[in-house]
């Protein structure tokens, strides 16, 4: 009850106000569809195209998911190695920094050539690379949060490396890993979608956005954008849910 009043109501109200203002603006100033479609028009378009939206979201979502899973696994794995082998960390620091600043638009064409333009792999790779960076950085940071007193304790218990990793290092890093995953979740959707602009099989949200825009069908383009927002949100919420399940008790 209280949570609804404090957490849910304000953003929903703000959203409604903004949408209403948008609708009124478009109606009152008779702004043509081609300049700015009204929320009502977008909604109508969305409702009319639900099956298409759904199948497109499925294509993009699947790529994002594969990228998310593979990128996260690689990110966590590399972070584990970097945390335990200092040389590896030093070797990879500039590479990760570089990876973090490569625009998808530059990467996508290259990856399409390397992996093939007829399969979804290149898109999944694009998503995976965008996921890798935040997951790697957060995990690495998390793995370095081990408190000295815990490290001492493990040493005092003559715990093996693996035991220390399992009982102290990983659990300490866990919230950080999930933070990385949360960021990565919606990022993976955007990356997979943007990658569609540069080639690959048709059928995803990205290709349909471009197709609609090319015909000035902005209401439909927006309905695809809307679907991609919903998809991104779903990914985010799923990451949040996994986090809540995995970190049942979040130490203050």
């Amino acid at each position: 009850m209280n949570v609804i009043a404090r957490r849910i109501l304000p953003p929903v109200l703000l959203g409604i106000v903004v949408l209403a203002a948008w609708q009124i603006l478009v109606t009152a100033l008779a702004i043509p569809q081609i300049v700015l479609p009204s929320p009502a028009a977008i909604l109508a378009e969305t409702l009319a195209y639900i099956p298409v939206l759904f199948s497109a979201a499925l294509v993009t979502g699947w790529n994002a998911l594969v990228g998310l899973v593979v990128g996260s696994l690689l990110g966590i794995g590399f972070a584990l190695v970097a945390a335990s082998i200092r040389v590896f960390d030093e070797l990879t620091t500039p590479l990760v920094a570089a990876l973090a600043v490569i625009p998808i638009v530059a990467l996508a064409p290259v990856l399409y050539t390397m992996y093939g333009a007829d399969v979804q792999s290149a898109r999944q790779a694009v998503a995976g690379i965008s996921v890798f960076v935040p997951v790697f950085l957060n995990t690495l940071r998390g793995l370095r949060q081990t408190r000295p007193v815990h490290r001492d304790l493990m040493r005092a218990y003559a715990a093996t490396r693996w035991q220390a990793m399992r009982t102290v290092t990983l659990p300490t890093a866990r919230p950080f890993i999930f933070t990385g995953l949360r960021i990565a979740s919606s990022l993976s959707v955007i990356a997979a979608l943007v990658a569609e602009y540069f080639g690959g099989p048709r059928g995803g949200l990205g290709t349909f956005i471009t197709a609609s825009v090319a015909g000035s069908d902005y209401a439909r383009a927006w309905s695809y954008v809307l679907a991609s927002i919903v998809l991104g949100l779903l990914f985010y919420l799923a990451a949040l849910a996994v986090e809540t399940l995995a970190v049942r008790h979040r130490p203050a």
Partner: protein
Amino acid sequence: MSEHTTATAIAEHSAGPAAALTTPTREGSGRARRLLMGLLGVLAVGVLWEAYKFLGPDDGVVVAGVRILPRTTDIAMPHLWDMAIRMTEPVTRAEGADLLWVATAKAAAFSLGVAALSWVIGVTVGLALALLMQRLRTAESAILPWVVLSQTVPLIALAPLVRNWGSKLSLGPISWENWMSVAVIASYLAFFPVAVGALRGLKSPDAIHADLLRSYAASWWQTLIRLRLPASVPYLLPALRLAAANAVIGTVVAEVSIGLRGGIGRMILEFAQSAAGDPPKSWAPIFGAICLGLLAAGAVALLGLALRRYRRGEEPA
């Protein structure tokens, strides 16, 4: 969506202030060593590239119908030396054409300019939002979810719209230019980490500090200047670095989308035309983009150096 989790997301991502766990012995010899190791790392990737290109099958490694490792043809993976040599040759045979690396540097400089402006806009907007959210709890709960949601919008889809709307604007004598659209799109990416990071930073002072200032009957403004802003620096700097990277990425994407002439994005578009016949050429803008991003991140690192008084107790990065 939980307030805590959303608010922490980016700031944590971007390495909030680390505990005062300084290991002083590490630092002194570190700098030169890190540089050397970094170079070695880059070298290692180069060796890996060539080694895989040499050993790997032309059609890549395909497992169960999925290509796990890339193709190794000259088109897919040009030799590094070919890329390097191509860099020193003119862009085209046309008279007066720049050398490729010169053209790339020029394009990078152009994009950097736009990105810098986007960064400034993004940081300003992000800070303003953070202040608003810090000041008013209702504003925070109303805005923050939308701020998070804003980042699920594929900005590439917005680019043509922004250009369309921008062209409707004319601010007195100043007319809307395409590079402004690019800046708007890039700042849309840049504002997010700042808003979230700054909010976290502004809320970072211990309760005891807030109490102290309250006991001094300090005004909100005094508290902001003396306490909240300085305390937020360790959160802000990683956010600024992220914003810089995002500004660069956003600039390049928007340049591609809008076709703004002069920058790296445009170069990607143009060189794609000869990607098949002249594969090493299309790598130039990629290296340009990387240098650009690293340069931007480096600039923020300098800023961090200037603000190091506010980062005491942070683990040296």
